[in-house]
């Protein structure tokens, strides 16, 4: 399987060299490494510094992780929405990737286009489009009411449901691509072989196709989850002001309330959470390779 491809897709910022046998090759990436350090690592370190020096030097801001209900709520909300979004995006993305992977080459091109086109539409436009669709007088509620399915409009937007709908819509293409890549690697003969050996279509999926597409599923999951943690515009527009996710909370601390220390603290926590997720994930993928899931 394409575990190497998958890790790249998961946008690992800088691969950590496992050994220095090829020092010459690493010298080649030195300029890129320095550039990354200057424009990427240095600001992150600065943020880290602010989080332990504002307003006083020490870990006071981090202590508030344990004591401040506001920051805790922002984190819990972010994780909850992130997990729900990831789960739904993976489910939809998996079905979509499955359909695309099994389609004819010509149909595949159209499917892919359909999957990718939303990526070119601004997240802002999409969020407003969802508002238009989901609000009380929106197309969805009107349609359901005209069809006599519901009597009163459903609260589909300006709450967490609205946020999840908007985020899932944004994340599905990101979920599809790594999964599609891994599904395309699956030798169709394996599926035929499994059926020839007596397995029903469902068993073939469960015992052969699904396990072989699992690395792609994991890569998609990590990608979507990490993206979800940083969502900013979609929750702001679709949340009705009542749901505050980490990114917006940080922005508020820094720009409006001017509590830089707190904002920097949560930003640091977010970065650490993302790096940890990636580290755990890369272990999992390497194990897969070790077991020979991919040849």
């Amino acid at each position: 399987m394409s575990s190497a491809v998958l890790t790249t897709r998961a946008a690992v910022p800088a691969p950590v060299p496992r050994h220095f046998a090829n020092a010459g090759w690493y010298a080649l990436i030195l300029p890129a490494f320095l550039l990354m350090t200057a424009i990427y690592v240095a600001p992150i370190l600065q943020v880290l510094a602010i989080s332990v020096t504002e307003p006083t030097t020490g870990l006071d801001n981090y202590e508030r992780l344990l004591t401040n209900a506001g920051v805790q709520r922002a984190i819990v909300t972010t994780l909850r929405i992130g997990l729900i979004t990831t789960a739904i995006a993976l489910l939809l993305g998996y079905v979509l990737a499955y359909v695309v992977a099994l389609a004819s080459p010509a149909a595949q091109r159209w499917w892919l286009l359909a999957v990718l086109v939303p990526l070119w539409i601004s997240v802002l436009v999409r969020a407003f489009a969802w508002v238009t669709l989901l609000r009380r007088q929106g197309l969805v509620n009107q349609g359901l009411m005209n069809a006599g399915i519901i009597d009163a409009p459903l609260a589909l937007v300006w709450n967490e449901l609205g946020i999840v709908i908007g985020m899932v819509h944004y994340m599905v293409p990101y979920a599809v691509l790594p999964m599609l890549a891994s599904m395309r690697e699956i030798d169709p003969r394996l599926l035929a072989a499994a059926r020839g050996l007596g397995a029903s279509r469902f068993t073939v999926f469960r015992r052969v196709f699904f396990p072989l597409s699992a690395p792609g599923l994991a890569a998609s999951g990590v990608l979507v989850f990490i993206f979800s943690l940083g969502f900013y515009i979609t929750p702001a527009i679709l949340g009705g002001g009542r749901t505050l996710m980490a990114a917006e909370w940080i922005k508020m601390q820094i720009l409006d309330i001017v509590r830089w220390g707190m904002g920097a603290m949560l930003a640091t926590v977010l970065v650490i959470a993302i790096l940890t997720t990636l580290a755990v994930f890369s272990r999992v993928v390497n194990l897969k390779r070790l077991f020979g899931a991919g040849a």
Partner: protein
Amino acid sequence: MRDDEIQSFHQDCVELAQEKHARGQLSRRQLMQAMAALGGAGLATASAHAQGTPRELVMVNWGGLANQGFGNFYGDPFAAENPGWRVVQDSSGPATGRIRSMVESGRVAWDLCDSSASGAKLLGGLNLATKVDYSIVDRANVIAPVFALEYGAAPYSFSSVLCYDSSKLPTPPTGWADFWNLQRFPGTRLLRRDAVCSLEAAMISMGRPAYPIDVRAAMRRVGELRRNLVFWTNGSESEQLMRTGEAVMGQVWHTRASVLERESNGRIKFIWNQGILQPGIFVIPRGNPGGVMAQRLLGSMLAKPEPQVGLLGLLGNGPTNPRAAALVPAELKRFNPTDPANERQQVAIDGNWWGDNYQQVNADFIDAITG
């Protein structure tokens, strides 16, 4: 991308004027004529000083038409009186955090920033803003003390008013007590996702004076409405929510309420009663490049009633100069927050109280309404 952030009033004015212009209610020609009468176009001013190298004052706004409005109604009249100086507009959006970042980095490029009462107090407290020099800026040029603060002064005003949908509410609400009365006025309400003005409304609804705000009681009061509240973060959102009938009532900026009243054929109305009158405070970042000239510019902005009336016509911002109200054309008086008839009914915001308490109270407010 700023559209999604919680929007400040200044940003919204600009957006509103653009929307009006786009709808054809404000013709480009009208706009230009008004601007020409009030001090000439920016280009002409710039070329008049072409012989010497003019020194610059940088005024920072929230983008869009504010560039033009502030340039023509604030910048140009000042430049006309001060040869060798010109005023340039920067639309980066002077968020409190951005001003802090600039001052702390020691490379201040801004002279005058469109901030707020609480922003002025906050920046002053952090020693990031310069005190207004009231020997240069004349306190007598504003109608009330709320427009002349220690760390900033307001050449314009705005108000957070109660706006309602008369097709949904046969009995018109008369104040914040009705806003909280779910039995008589059922339906969704709007508040800005900000403690400022929300808590004042809560206090008044309980029949108590707005200040000092009893934070716990006011917060609890907001909590009573929680199931029926949608919080808006930018002006067009609030207008949209009213216009489409999502909400029956809302606390919205008077500029948006004015548009709704004018355009809905009387379906949507607003009342000045118990509106929260607020100053559009400009602050001078500490170490600004123009030095004391920024004080003079601020003084000039406060001193001239005609441009302030011009701005009312363009962006809807209320004048703060005592002589301005009389100059407002009759058809605009209904929409002028500082018209004596309107001002009387409103409650002026206490910028000092908010300056002292904004950080903590707003954080608590956000915590209370989210999650």
